[in-house]
């Protein structure tokens, strides 16, 4: 069954059809939540909450990019979580070792399919990106995650973040600039192979 048919069935209350859509988009929603929140558990909670909200509000979907519509629900769930976090004592984003020291490149961030060197490189890169994303204000972070990590176009980002197109453009430019400044500090620490790829692409 194609996506529009699954959406129509889900709108009529077919949970199986909706769950097939969940399986198709859960990685995208989880990654978005993980980048905005920077915490695995919170990202999983936000993703689950987003799918639940999406199912309840499915009749409000009126066409267009379904991915963007779903990403809007997860962005809202992330904003809610960030507001809650402001009211609560913060918890460290990195896991701690036995002596209370934060582990900067935790093993749980690694892709088990990659070689040890690749795992190390990915963990380093991941750490640098997350550190710089966390330094951004939440509304800038959401825009850059949606555009550059999830690959949405400007119209979809505007829809997902509930922002005017002009605001998306300006926030994206500002966020990229800040990220570039932040990543500059990590540049020499980034994997050599990765630097070569980036410089070649540039």
């Amino acid at each position, binding site marked *: 069954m194609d996506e529009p048919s699954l959406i129509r069935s889900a709108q009529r209350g077919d949970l199986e059809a909706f769950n097939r859509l969940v399986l198709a988009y859960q990685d995208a929603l989880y990654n978005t939540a993980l980048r905005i929140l920077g915490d695995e558990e919170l990202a999983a909670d936000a993703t689950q909450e987003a799918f639940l909200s999406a199912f309840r509000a499915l009749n409000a979907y009126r066409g267009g990019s379904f991915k963007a519509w779903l990403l809007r629900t997860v962005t809202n769930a992330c904003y809610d979580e960030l507001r809650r976090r402001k009211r609560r004592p913060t918890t460290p984003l990195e896991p701690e070792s036995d002596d209370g020291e934060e582990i900067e490149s935790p093993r749980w961030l690694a892709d088990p399919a990659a070689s040890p060197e690749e795992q190390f490189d990915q963990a380093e890169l991941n750490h640098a990106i997350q550190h710089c994303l966390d330094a951004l204000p939440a509304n800038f972070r959401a825009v850059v995650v949606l555009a550059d990590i999830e690959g949405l176009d400007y119209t979809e980002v505007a829809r997902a973040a509930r922002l005017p197109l002009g605001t998306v453009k300006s926030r994206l*430019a500002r966020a990229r600039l800040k990220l570039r400044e932040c990543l500059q500090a990590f540049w020499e620490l980034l994997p050599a192979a990765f630097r070569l790829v980036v410089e070649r692409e540039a």
Partner: protein
Amino acid sequence: MKTTFRDLEQLSAYLDGQLPQAEAARLESRLAADPALAAALEELRQARAVLRRAPRRRAPRAFTLTPQMAGLKPPVPRAVPVFSWASALATLIFLCAFGGAWMGQLTSRSAVPVMESGYGGGPAETQEVITEAAPMLAAPSGQEAADTTRLAEATPTLSATPEAASFTAQEQPLPPQAKRPAVRPWPFVWLGLAALLGGAALYLRWAAQRRFRRRYPR
């Protein structure tokens, strides 16, 4: 020339191919002439490239929803409310019919003594006394009934006569109006119908729940 934020916005949009053609052409000519602007474009491009290569994670578990999470309930077949309302209506009709019959029975019971007194007798006890009395005293009323009792005591031999016995046999049956009314079947037909319709509604609901549980096992 100093790079302004407006320039950066344009460079970012240009990078994503979101700049109108005329503006893109103007920017390209500026980029060729302004090394600082070209350097800013390069920085934005690098930042975007890093983000695009950010490691992606797989979802740690399936985020599929269960019927409980989604608050789904077994669908109620359309016939269920129809049967339920029909059952309720049949019950109401049964109650009215049964209540009517009962009231009628009460009314007819209370009417018996009146008819008997009209016929010439008093209460049932008086009627029994009369049957033991002499034939000529068989139909008194009120004070006459009391007199009759006294007379019956005074002339016991009279009740023993064959004439008196035959007269008593003729007078003993109650008039037809005083008989208990016959049991009418209609109230019970409505009761049966109500039970049947209610049972059908329950069965349909149960069957729908069974189908739902088979479709979404816990």
